[in-house]
Every structure is written in structure tokens, then in C-alpha cells.
């Protein structure tokens, strides 16, 4: 009874043709949606700026982010009385340039966000594809595991693991990457379950195309849209998770400039130097907000029925 339901559902949002058509039509639909959606345009522009700042950080940062100047501690941003020349957004408790630290923090946040998302995306997509295509005991085992992981706030375990292993950028990426696979696996599995009974897959199988080939050439392009959508939204979640760990002092080593770490330091000096925490917080907010707006737009394109 489920076959007809699945076909109509997929048919409504995806073209029936296999291969790259699905992918390019998704890109086309995104372009059209973007042309109509003013808010998403702004978000994409901000996002591009943030990424550029992340990539070219060392070139645009006016100072070395860890260079201390104890004669210019806690200086305010340039528009306030008593600012130190050369420090646009002021200095922190050790006289380090806040603007440069926010710029370098962008690099760390984006690195963790993208790397952890890629890792969990690859794990999740592979598992989802294998579970949906082969079903059987593999499917049962991993979907149970997904249930277990969903019924528990994994950030708590990530916290303990990172705390115990010691602060390290790579541990943070590994732990966040290893715990983020569930949403991909579930969605990709559901897509593949409905795709595998479609004509082009049956035809490919009848022609003797191997399972791996079917998954790579025929299924992968068709799960592209949900994959990109979840991935985009997850980057924001990963950035917040990294910032949370760093805020608690459990993420990357304290010498590395991170937005979360700056917020924690800034909180200690909130009464005398609000700029330390506010600018790093604005960095987080701009990034997550623009990613979420973009992701919502992608989701509307990929699945017009899900407007939650």
C-alpha cells in the first residue's frame, strides 16, 4: 500500500528522471526562490561575507589576535571616548585587538561548523543510503541506534567526552561530527526507500548495474536536495555547539580565539568592557541567523509541504 503513496509524494516535489537532472533542477528552483525572497538574499550576502572574512582573515585582520598590549587594556571601540588608536572594536583584558580576535574566531567557527557537518553528512548519508537500499538487519540496528541517540541530548555526552579528552580543535570536530549523523540517515533512508522501487532503479537493476553503481549514479543525485538542506541548517547548529563548548571552557584550547571563549572572557568584564562579548556574540548571531534563513529557504524549495 505504501508504493503508490510514496510515488505520488516524490513525484510532487522531484522530477521522475534520474541522474543529474534532479540536481540541476534543484539549483534552478533555488535560484527562482532566491529571486523572490528578499530576506534570503540578504542572508546569502551576509553569509558570503562571513565566509570571505573566514577565508581571508589573516589578510584583513589589523593585528595579531594573540598580540598583547598591556598598556592598552580594555580600551573601548573607536566611537567611544578613550579609545586606543588602531583598535577599531577596542581591546580585551590583555590588550588584544577585539576585531582581529572576532575575525580569527570566524575561521574557527566556520572550520568546526563545516568540518563537523561534512563528517556527519558523509556518515549519515552513507548509513541512510545503505539502510534504505538493503534494509534488513543493518537497517534495524542503525535505526534503533538513531532512536537512542535522538532520545538523549547528545551535547551532554559531547561535553563530557571533550572535557575528558582535553581541549582540542580536532576532538571537538570529531565528537560533533560523530554525533550529528542521525538527521541525515533518517531522511536519506526514507528517500531511498521510496526511490528504490521506482522504474529507473528497477530498469538499472534489470540491466545488471551493480548496487554500488545504482546508489552512486542514480540514488545520490536524487537525495542531493534534502542532503544540502539538512547540511546547511546543521552548520549553524554545529557552530552554536562549538561556541557553547568554548564558552564553558571545554572546547578548543583557551589560547585559540573563539567566539564562545570571547563571550566567556567578556562576561567577566561586562561592567567595564561590554564590547569583548557583544561583538563576538554578534558574530555568532549574524552567522547562525543567515545560515538558518538560507536553510529555511532551501527547505521550502526541497519540500514545499514542510513549512515548519
Amino acid at each position, binding site marked *: 500500500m505504501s508504493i503508490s503513496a510514496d510515488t505520488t509524494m516524490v513525484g510532487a516535489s522531484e522530477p521522475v528522471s534520474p541522474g543529474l537532472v534532479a540536481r540541476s533542477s534543484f539549483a534552478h528552483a533555488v535560484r527562482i526562490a532566491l529571486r523572490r525572497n528578499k530576506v534570503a538574499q540578504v542572508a546569502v550576502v551576509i553569509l558570503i561575507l562571513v565566509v570571505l572574512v573566514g577565508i581571508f582573515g589573516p589578510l584583513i585582520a589589523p593585528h595579531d589576535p594573540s598580540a598583547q598590549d598591556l598598556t592598552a587594556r580594555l580600551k573601548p571601540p573607536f566611537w567611544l571616548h578613550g579609545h586606543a588608536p588602531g583598535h577599531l572594536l577596542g581591546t580585551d583584558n590583555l590588550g588584544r585587538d577585539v576585531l582581529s580576535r572576532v575575525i580569527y574566531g570566524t575561521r574557527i567557527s566556520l572550520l568546526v561548523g563545516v568540518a563537523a557537518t561534512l563528517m556527519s553528512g558523509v556518515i549519515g548519508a552513507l548509513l541512510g543510503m545503505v539502510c534504505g537500499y538493503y534494509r534488513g538487519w543493518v537497517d534495524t540496528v542503525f535505526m534503533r541506534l538513531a532512536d537512542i541517540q535522538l*532520545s538523549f*541530548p547528545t551535547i551532554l555526552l559531547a*561535553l*563530557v*567526552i571533550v572535557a575528558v579528552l582535553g581541549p582540542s580543535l580536532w576532538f571537538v570536530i570529531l565528537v560533533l561530527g560523530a554525533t550529528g549523523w542521525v538527521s541525515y540517515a533518517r531522511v536519506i533512508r526514507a528517500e531511498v526507500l521510496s526511490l528504490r522501487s521506482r522504474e529507473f532503479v528497477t530498469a538499472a537493476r534489470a540491466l545488471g548495474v551493480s548496487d554500488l553503481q545504482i546508489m552512486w549514479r542514480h540514488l545520490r543525485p536524487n537525495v542531493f536536495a534534502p542532503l544540502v538542506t539538512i547540511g546547511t541548517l546543521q552548520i549553524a547548529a554545529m557552530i*552554536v555547539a562549538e561556541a557553547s563548548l568554548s*564558552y*564553558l571552557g571545554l572546547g578548543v584550547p583557551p589560547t585559540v580565539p573563539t567566539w564562545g571563549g570571547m563571550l566567556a572572557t567578556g562576561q567577566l568584564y561586562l561592567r567595564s568592557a561590554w564590547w569583548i562579548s557583544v561583538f563576538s556574540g554578534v558574530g555568532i548571531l549574524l552567522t547562525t*541567523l543567515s545560515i538558518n534563513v538560507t536553510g529555511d529557504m532551501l527547505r521550502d524549495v526541497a519540500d514545499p509541504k514542510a*513549512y515548519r
Partner: protein
Amino acid sequence: MAATASARLRPTRSATGFLRRSPLVMFLLKRLLQAVIVLFCVATVAFFVIRISGDPVKALLPEGATISQERTLRHSLGYDRPLIVQYLTYLKGLLHLDFGQSVFFQQPALDVILNRLPATIRLAAAALVFALVVAIPAGIVSAVRRGRATDSSVMAAVLVGQSTPAFFVGIVLILVFAVELRVLPASGTGGFEHLILPAITLGLYSAAMIARLLRSSLIDVLGEDHIRTAKAKGLSPLRVIFANGLRNAALPVITIVGLEIGSLLGGAILTEQVFSWPGVGQLTVQAISNRDYPLVQATVLFLAIVFVGVNLIVDILYAFLDPRVRLS
């Protein structure tokens, strides 16, 4: 399908046979079993993670401790026994609600946690009240005035609420209300005024989520035929929204509210840390920085029990309210 039908035709012989055939009982048992498995996994992962870090005993001792001091501590903590024996002892203890001994506080970990629990419950309750008071009117207004300026501003606020990490919300609130306006305390506990900022910080994300869900659920319902009928009968718009619309839109929202209670209780670590709120979340961070590993293990498991337990209760209540859930 056929198997179930034939099973139903056979007469029930025993009480267990009856129980096995009741979908509700099967549903409850399945959910209970799942909850136990989750908790078992969390307990196991927490146990082994803390031990792969190397030697917890070395981390506990001050620099320059003698070998005999190390041996005494190791023995008193039971870390000189084989790993598997430690693990089994730990699991056996859990069955008797023995969460181990806090090294830092020198008392049972459970007692330390239970001391902190009232603060966490108070904060979670206040956050929930805040979330509901904000989200219900916001969701209704935005669904009724769909597509207009009010709706857009509510949805923009929802997006900001969902994108801002709790610690930044908290810091901004402290900056505005404690540092600049000096009307509310920045941290600690005490009277009602101490509760306001932490509750807003913790409840903001839930408020955004509930408002968003209520809006989309209400928009769905308001488009249905029975609403058109009610309107056509000449009922007042307010009556249609409250009596016909809200009642039908409430069920998915109630589920999410229930699940949010679990996250509010189990996920208050950041908010508690921002406001130095003496709850279980702050205790977890303290235990981590004190390297009090038995206590870390206990708090993680305890928060997991609260989270899983609340979700289980919500699921069970939901199954009683909506028969479709347990039959699916």
C-alpha cells in the same frame, strides 16, 4: 495483517496472553524498554569515556603526591580492580540508586545532585511559564494575521530566538538589565527578581519553537472545512479561533511542550553557567573542572534519566489521548 487477525480470533487463555494482545500495553512496554536501553547506553558510554581519559586517580591527586598516596586513593575509589569488575559494580549500584561517591564533596553523588535539583526545577518551571505566556499569543496572532506585518515580525522574532545561543541571550540581558538599567540582579539566587533573567534566557528558544509550531498548526486547522462551516454559520471570528481552531491545533503543540520540559530540565547547563544558577547543570560543569569524575558520571546519567523520563511520560500520556499513536 493476516497474522494479527488470526491472533485476534483465537480465544485468550491467560492474563499474559491478554496483555500481549493489548496494543496499549505493548506500546507502553516497548517505550519503557526503549527508555531503559537508552539509559543503559548512556551509563555505559559515560563510564568508559571517563576511563579512556587515562588515569582519573592521577588527575585527582595534587602534583608531587607520593606513590603510596596514589595507591591509597586508587584503592579507596576502587580503581585498582579490573575494569569489567568496576563496570559491573557500577551497574549493580545503579540498580540500587547508588550513583557513586563524589570525590570533591566527599558524599554520595546522588545527595549532591538532589541538593541542586530544586534550583533546576524552579528555573525550568519559570522558563516554561515564560515560553508559554509569550508563545501562545504570538502563535495565535501570527496565524490569524498570516502574511501581514504582524505575522512577519513575529516570525522574524522566532528566527532570531531560534538562532541565538542561550549564553549570548543571557549576556545581553545582563548587560541591559543588570549593568545598564540596574533593575535586576546579574547572577545568583534569592527572590523572584533573580529568576527573571535566567528564565527568559532558558525559555526563549522554547518560546520561539512553540510559537512557530502553534502558528503552522493553527494555519492548517483554520483552512479546514469545519472552520469554514463555523464561519458560515455566523459565529464570531474570536469564537471560531478559540473554540474550533485552537482546540484542534493544540495536540501537536502539547506534545512539543511536553518534550520541551525534558530539554529545559536536562539542557540548562549553559543558562545555569551564565547566571551562576546553583542547579544540576552548573554542578556538571563544576564537577568537570574539579575533575570529580564519579560526580560527572552521575550528573550526566541523572540528566539523561530526567530527560528520558519526562519524554516517556509525555509519550504515554499522548498514547492515552490519541489512539492513533499506539496503533501505528
